[in-house]
């Protein structure tokens, strides 16, 4: 059969499901410009133009949630990015291969812990009364600290627990890339009297540049879409001032308050900013480093 049209049947289930659950919602985004009422449906609901967006930007929540999202996301990115690269470089230049395998197996493991369990562990360890961290503090004569209730600690807890959970797994891709470094470079450098540290710094690290750029661009593109799951799980009334991010706000407004159009408008604003960031960062990196996504 020419063109292999029968292969279309292979794709049909996926196309149907993706159309229904992905493309129809994209089409439904127009409710951001309407005053959506379930009874009237998407089409029947009254058209209100940019009113929902105006309402968001005039609300007291707008600036804090945008700021919290940006700060949390940027902090996460800036802190976790180098850790993964450094870990990969160290592992790659590590002499004890067996021990290295153990380290890798262990550092990958937290990646498979669910968000709920991860946050549950944090809350358990940091609990002011029975948590192990505070037990240690108290035994050294200090005062118990309500970690989860201190808003100035919340971001650090969020970011560094994230690094704990993901550094091993994020290093996999760099570690894999490093296997592409030709041994000849190292041999030549050894002959020239380069130390191991110099070789890691001047051979291995530059070799990772394209991979790093690619991942950096992708991460910047999702800077405002930082995960709902973990932020929501770690939220409480005391840290709300820093933990309320756009996605958690969208959830509360839309699903809990049933203010559906308003919620969609905030969500849409979020995706538009993401796309702009992705395109901008891509353009910048293309200009300065010749590496880019497209």
């Amino acid at each position, binding site marked *: 059969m020419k063109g292999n*049209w029968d292969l279309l049947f292979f*794709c049909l289930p996926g196309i149907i499901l993706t159309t229904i659950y992905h493309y129809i919602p994209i089409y*439904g985004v127009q409710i951001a410009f309407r005053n959506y009422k379930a009874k009237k449906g998407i089409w029947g609901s009254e058209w209100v133009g940019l009113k929902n967006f105006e309402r968001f930007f005039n609300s007291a929540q707008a600036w804090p949630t945008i700021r919290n999202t940006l700060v949390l996301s940027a902090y996460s990115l800036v802190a976790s990015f180098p850790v993964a690269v450094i870990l990969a470089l160290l592992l790659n230049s*590590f002499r004890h291969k067996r021990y290295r395998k153990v380290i890798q197996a262990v550092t990958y493991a937290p990646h498979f*812990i669910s968000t709920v369990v991860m946050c*549950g562990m944090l809350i358990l360890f940091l609990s002011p009364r029975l948590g192990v961290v505070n037990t240690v503090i108290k035994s050294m004569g200090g005062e118990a600290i309500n970690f989860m209730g201190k808003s100035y600690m919340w971001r650090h807890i969020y970011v560094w627990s994230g690094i704990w959970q993901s550094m091993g797994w994020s290093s996999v891709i760099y570690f894999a890339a490093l296997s592409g470094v030709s041994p000849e470079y190292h041999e030549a450098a050894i002959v020239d009297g380069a130390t191991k540290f110099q070789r890691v710094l001047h051979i291995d690290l530059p070799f990772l540049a394209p991979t790093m750029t690619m991942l950096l661009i992708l991460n910047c593109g999702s800077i405002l879409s930082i995960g709902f*799951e973990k932020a929501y799980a770690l939220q409480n009334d005391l840290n709300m001032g820093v933990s309320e991010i756009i996605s958690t706000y*969208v959830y509360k407004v839309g699903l809990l308050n049933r203010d559906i159009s308003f919620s969609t408008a905030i*969500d849409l604003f979020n995706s538009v900013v993401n796309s702009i960031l992705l395109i901008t960062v891509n353009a910048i990196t293309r200009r300065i480093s010749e590496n880019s996504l497209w």
Partner: protein
Amino acid sequence: MEVSKHLKRTRQDVVYDTIIFIILTFVLLIVAYPLYFVIISSFSDPVAVAGGKVVFFPIGFTLDGYKEVFKTSTVMRGFANSLLYTALGVSINLAVTMPTAYALSRKDFLLRKPITLFYMVTMFVGGGMMPTYIVIRDTGLLDTMWALILPGALGVYNMIVARTFFTTNIPQELMEAAKLDGCGNTRFFFYIVLPLSGAITAILFLYYGVGHWNSYFSALLYINDRTKWPLQLELRNILLLNSVNTTSKVMTEAELKEKERLEALKEMMKYSLIIISSIPVLVIYPFVQRHFVKGVMIGSVKG
């Protein structure tokens, strides 16, 4: 790096190696200790855990925490639900993803480009939370397990991993030879491609499986009926939302002690709960870690 083995290491290199050894050992301990601590705490006397006495080994070995978990019917129900959702979910994931990935790996498939584009777009553009919710509601999926299974039946990233696998592992000549013998695409896929796809099936099985098992967001959005809650939502109730009620009534010393013990037990049960909820992943992890990593590498090949 064969040469370096024969050369004598300089003193600077020895220093470097030592420092790396120390750093990596430190990393290892930082990652491993909290996990280890959860394990030993789950077997220890609750009061000892609360008092910070459990450091390296379980103290006052007991299975009370586990017994407590097994007595909690909501957790058991959630566990059963999650097993069902994961098993069914992964089967559907594979049934949808594998054929699509195979079709898109075929260069002689006329619709390859448009369909690939159709999927690539979804990686960057989406409808967002509420529009998706409306569609799920209008298609009658609310409060059914299908809300957790159908919308994500095809993960684009996973599909690309599988497609890359097929492109590199199923030689085009094989297809041509089969065609000459009168074998059509469907037969070829079921009798030749699938039997050769053990590795990729394992990878997808695990990626999708861990995803289903660990996710709580979709259930939070779409499942209100508690009898249908997956385990992660029940866990959330116990691990995250459980506030310790401190009644202010005056108590005798014995009552106070009993209350403290109960509180500690409640706290310790959480450690056991964490272990039990992680069992499915823990059991397969050692066997499949290799495959997981392989998946990342296949996925990182730009395609």
